[in-house]
């Protein structure tokens, strides 16, 4: 047993972080917030060229030939960076929808009561008839409501958990950075025990979710995946709230990025089987 990232996996993660830092840094993020509903096709193709969507396709089919653990690592990075777009849906369609693997076709999926990026999609998986647009709380994710959806794909559940994990790790870093810099009463607020303990809880939730998500990527067991998702949703949503609290009044402004993380975490928590489904799945397995 060697439950650690391999050197290749670390290099993949670092490469993805570097790519996103270059193509979707803070300026690009805020530009996207100012132009809601518009998907950056050039960025989407760049992701396609980098192998983001074709990551798990066999090399013989023009893919990268990697597995779920690697997919989880790149989706974690996408989550950290708040990368917009139907990333999970397009990744899952790489083998079946022409152009998806290369990032030329944007694919939306009906995998819950809400569909993300329906208007931007060149292809839709599932039945989106009767979809009604709503004014999305997340400026970076346009949403439609749909009447019904089938059971979620476990891989979609897992990759969503990976994105949530990215948010959980990122908001922990943002909270700690702010707590070290921001001074009140003549001291950095990070020296106050109340703030220290909020930050400690942020880390504990993120690290617990991390091992659950990574292990589920290795086992691909539906119960492990459900567990990972429950913990990652909690770590992202509660983490973003605590991060906002650490930022104080600054955290309540549009200029701070904290609300973007929280809103995205809320959106993802509704995607591909929510916490109720996950908890029921695990409970049923317990009583077997």
């Amino acid at each position, binding site marked *: *047993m*060697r*439950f650690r990232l391999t050197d290749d996996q670390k290099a993949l993660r670092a490469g993805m972080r570097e790519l996103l830092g270059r193509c979707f840094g803070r300026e690009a993020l805020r530009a996207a917030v100012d132009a809601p509903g518009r998907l950056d096709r050039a960025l989407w193709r760049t992701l396609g060229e980098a192998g983001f969507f074709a990551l798990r396709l066999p090399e013989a089919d023009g893919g990268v030939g990697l597995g779920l653990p690697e997919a989880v690592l790149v989706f974690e990075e996408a989550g950290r960076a708040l990368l917009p777009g139907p990333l999970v849906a397009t990744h899952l369609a790489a083998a079946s929808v022409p152009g998806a693997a290369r990032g030329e076709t944007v694919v939306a999926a009906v995998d819950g009561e809400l569909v993300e990026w329906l208007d931007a999609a060149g292809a839709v998986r599932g039945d989106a008839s009767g979809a009604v647009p709503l004014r999305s709380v997340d400026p970076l994710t346009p949403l439609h409501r749909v009447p019904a959806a089938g059971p979620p794909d476990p891989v979609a559940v897992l990759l969503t958990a990976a994105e949530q994990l990215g948010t959980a790790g990122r908001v922990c870093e943002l909270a700690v950075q702010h707590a070290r810099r921001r001074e009140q009463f003549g001291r950095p607020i*990070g020296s106050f025990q109340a703030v*220290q303990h909020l930050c*400690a809880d942020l880390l504990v939730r993120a*690290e617990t979710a991390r091992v659950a998500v990574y292990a589920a990527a290795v086992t691909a067991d539906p119960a492990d995946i459900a*567990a990972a998702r429950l913990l990652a949703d909690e770590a992202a949503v509660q983490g973003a709230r605590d991060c906002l609290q650490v930022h104080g009044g600054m955290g309540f402004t549009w200029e701070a990025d904290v609300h973007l993380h929280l809103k995205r975490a809320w959106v993802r928590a509704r995607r591909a089987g929510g916490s109720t489904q996950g908890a029921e799945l695990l409970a049923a*397995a317990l009583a077997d």
Partner: protein
Amino acid sequence: MDLSCTPEEEEFRARLRDWLGKVLPTLPAQPSPDDWPGRRAYDLGWQRMLYDAGYADVHWDASPTRRLIYLEETEKAGAPYVGANFVGLLHAGPTIAAEGSAEQRARWLPPILRGEQVWCQGFSEPDAGSDLASLRTRARRDGDVYVVTGSKIWTSHAEVADWCELLVRTDPDAPRHRGITWLALPMDAEGVTVRPLRTLAGSAEFAEVFLDEVRVPVANRVGEENDGWRVTMVTLSFERGTAFVGEVVACRRVLTGLARTARDNGRWDDPALRRRLGRLDAEFRALWRLTQWNVSAAEESGGVPGVGGSVFKLRYSHARQELYDTAAEVLGPDCLDLDRPWVLDRLSSLSYTIAAGTSQIQRTIVAERILGLPRGR
């Protein structure tokens, strides 16, 4: 990332499983939780069986993965846990192994492994609980002995212990972390008085220990004089790192029992309760993964478990309390009946967020040592 075991490790697992299948049916009935002499005899007997079968030093095994397999398999099989051997096997033993001289290792380690001696932990004092560095028990040097005076509290197994890993202050003028020394105290020494303390669970689980001019040979000192704080941190990293590992598997067993009971008594039809059980399953799955992650990290760095143990301890202690609070939901009115399963466990789980450093102390450790936040005042 690899969660699979090597063929050697799988062989170890198979051999252990086979052995457990043979010996567990031959064990005598467990003594009652209040019967400390009975528990001492039972736990030492089990340790002796492990020794004879070649598993005695599994907690000190060079391969953390094998240790993990041992804990997983023994818990799954319902084998006894370390019990009264807890301090010897998980604290004092590893500390002596890491910091003791060759002579000290030869003197104390074999009797611990053979199940001949029980150790207790003399760290906490009435005015030094989580603030361990403020301990006041004094040791004055007199030739080749230390003369020790003071008192210890919340000392588990003190009544039945042969030895005590004792922290004393040897230099009252030094900064408080610097003047502390780690001693092995024989519990039958003149001047040692043990007074059992009753816990809120009703049992006499731990004790107060009074030390009145107790003479401890200098040869019983592990590490250098006034260097006991560093030695202690070695012990505590074991305590927070791997000491609770077996319990995680046990908690998952409890969870399955709760689900079955809820099915039988109709509480399962309550969706809120059912989902709470599902969430707890997620929690304990993750705690097991966290263990595997920390063990792999220790294996990679080739040594003592690191501060990651604080993350585990913090999360686990709360999850355990949540588990037994949920058990009360499953039991309904029976949750107030001390004769029902899980009711005593619920009471004892209350200690988990206090013992071995309170959750508040653990959060401060995480904030300052892992996250690098400025030190509080």
